[in-house]
């Protein structure tokens, strides 16, 4: 465009030497106007591409809402061996998650997650050889494929203000750190701590309504927030339960602390779960710790605690972690979901060390070693040593 107008000016100067200065000035102004219009057009073109969806890219919603799509993929290879556990190795996990969120207005939004996976699980993980009497495996063994698809999260959110929003549907329960952090790429060790693998401690999903809000702390800086929700207990979904959480975080989120609770039916009794969680970051160090105790009004309540310090040994790329993780699960069932009353109680420490390599923020490659140490009365079952060692190589990718 600039060259075109330049050529026109040149031709006029060459072939019309009598052209007056004011005419040249007029043309020059016209040229500047056109150049300005061209810049505006380029900006508007960018707005047309970017503004309607808030993001550039080839994926758009069918309608006029803003659509976000993302997800994760995790795969893991595990080896186990112990005094009474034969060496076994398998690709134990392939899990794909899809997150879809649609924003209809500043107040109204839909958020969901879809999971599908193919796993090889360790059947009878806390094995008691006596359970073979009732038809279960008498050994800890990597069994056949388990596969499935589910929607663990799907809710409609209405935000009345920053201090109060309502979600209706279901989602991961806001209890501590690991119960609500189900983005595998953010876990330093695959599968997370024992407490989210120990049943029954906390109901893993809220269902019904979830109220939440955030407040700024004027004096100290940072924020505090709350959750209040209902849930349907896994054991007795006909009686709704309620839960709540209150948390506090410093301005840069380098210190977060929270307390959580749940009250709901667990079999014939009403149980109360109480938890506390803490996360501190002081670069290059980070510590995450959580505790949960479920009161079932017996002498032997299930509870769990872990601490996981880590350190970036190569700035923001390679992370080294260690952990100590304890779970006391007196009501553990020999087979998940079994209602025959066959329990397989255990008390177990997990100690370990591992390395995470984050070539980008969106990829986490892990190598972990865990010693599974059964203690107290659960060290041995029917004369067999329950301890075992597991090594794990895994990759988590988020997109």
């Amino acid at each position, binding site marked *: 465009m600039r060259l075109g107008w330049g050529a026109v000016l040149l031709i006029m100067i060459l072939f019309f030497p009598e052209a007056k200065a004011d005419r040249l000035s007029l043309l020059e102004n016209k040229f500047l106007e056109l150049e300005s219009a061209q810049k505006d057009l380029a900006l508007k073109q960018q*707005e047309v591409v970017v503004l309607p969806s808030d993001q550039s890219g080839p994926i758009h919603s069918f309608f006029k809402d803003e659509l976000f799509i993302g997800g994760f993929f995790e795969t893991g290879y595990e080896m186990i061996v112990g005094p009474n556990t034969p060496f076994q190795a398998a690709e134990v996990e392939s899990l794909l998650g899809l997150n879809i969120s649609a924003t209809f207005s*500043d107040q109204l939004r839909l958020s969901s997650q879809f999971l599908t996976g193919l796993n090889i699980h360790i059947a009878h993980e806390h094995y008691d050889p006596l359970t073979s009497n009732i038809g279960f495996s008498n050994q800890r063994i990597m069994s056949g494929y388990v596969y499935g698809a589910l929607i663990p*999260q799907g809710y409609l959110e209405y935000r009345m203000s920053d201090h109060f929003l309502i979600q209706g549907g279901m989602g991961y329960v806001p209890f501590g750190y690991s119960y609500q*952090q189900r983005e595998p790429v*953010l876990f330093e060790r695959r599968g997370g701590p024992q407490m989210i693998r120990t049943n029954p401690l906390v109901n893993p999903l809220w269902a019904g309504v979830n109220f939440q809000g955030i407040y*700024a702390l004027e004096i100290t800086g940072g924020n505090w927030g709350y959750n209040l929700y209902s849930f349907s207990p896994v054991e007795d979904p006909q009686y709704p339960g309620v839960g709540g959480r209150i948390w506090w975080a410093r301005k*840069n*989120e380098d210190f977060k602390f929270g307390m959580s609770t749940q009250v709901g039916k667990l079999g014939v009794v009403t149980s109360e779960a109480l938890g506390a969680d803490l996360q501190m970051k002081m670069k290059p160090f980070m510590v995450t710790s959580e505790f949960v105790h479920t009161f079932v009004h017996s002498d032997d309540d299930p509870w769990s605690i872990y601490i996981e310090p880590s350190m970036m040994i190569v700035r923001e790329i390679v992370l080294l972690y260690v952990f100590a993780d304890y779970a006391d699960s007196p009501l553990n069932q020999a087979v998940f979901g079994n209602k025959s009353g066959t329990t397989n109680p255990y008390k177990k420490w997990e100690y370990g060390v591992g390395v995470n390599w984050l070539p980008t*923020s969106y990829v986490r490659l892990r190598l972990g070693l865990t010693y599974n140490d059964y203690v107290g009365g659960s060290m041995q079952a029917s004369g067999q040593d329950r301890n075992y060692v597991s090594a794990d190589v895994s990759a988590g990718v988020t997109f």
Partner: protein
Amino acid sequence: MRDQLKTNNKILAGLIAIFICFHDLAKAEEIVFIVNAENPIKEMRNQDVVDIFLKKKREWADASGIHFIDRKDGSVERHIFLTQYIGRSDRDIELYWIGQKLYSGNAAPMQVLTDQNAEKMVSTFKGGMSYVLSTYVLGKGVKKIMIQGNTSP
């Protein structure tokens, strides 16, 4: 002796000149925060900037929505913004948004490349907010706001 003094003075003058040049360069690398010209706000706290960027605060005092416009990764403006106002690294922020994908369904703010586009976006949205280099000459559709409580260098 006199020659030595002259040489020393020249060196000193050179050092002062270099200091002034670099000081001016350092001064040039500052950002200012802009909002839509119709927005009545004149100043906000650094904590509010953090909360708005992380989408913990999503509305202005009149309950209208905030549309924060971020700058492209790796740009000078974003580097200053993250280090001096947010206090977190680029990677930290990426991990934060990865978590938010599930926690809240929130997505990272839209990013634009140039000061001109940031200004254009903010002037388009009544609830818009962004940041530009302090040397950028602002147009009529936006206005600068003061940030209180920023103690970073």
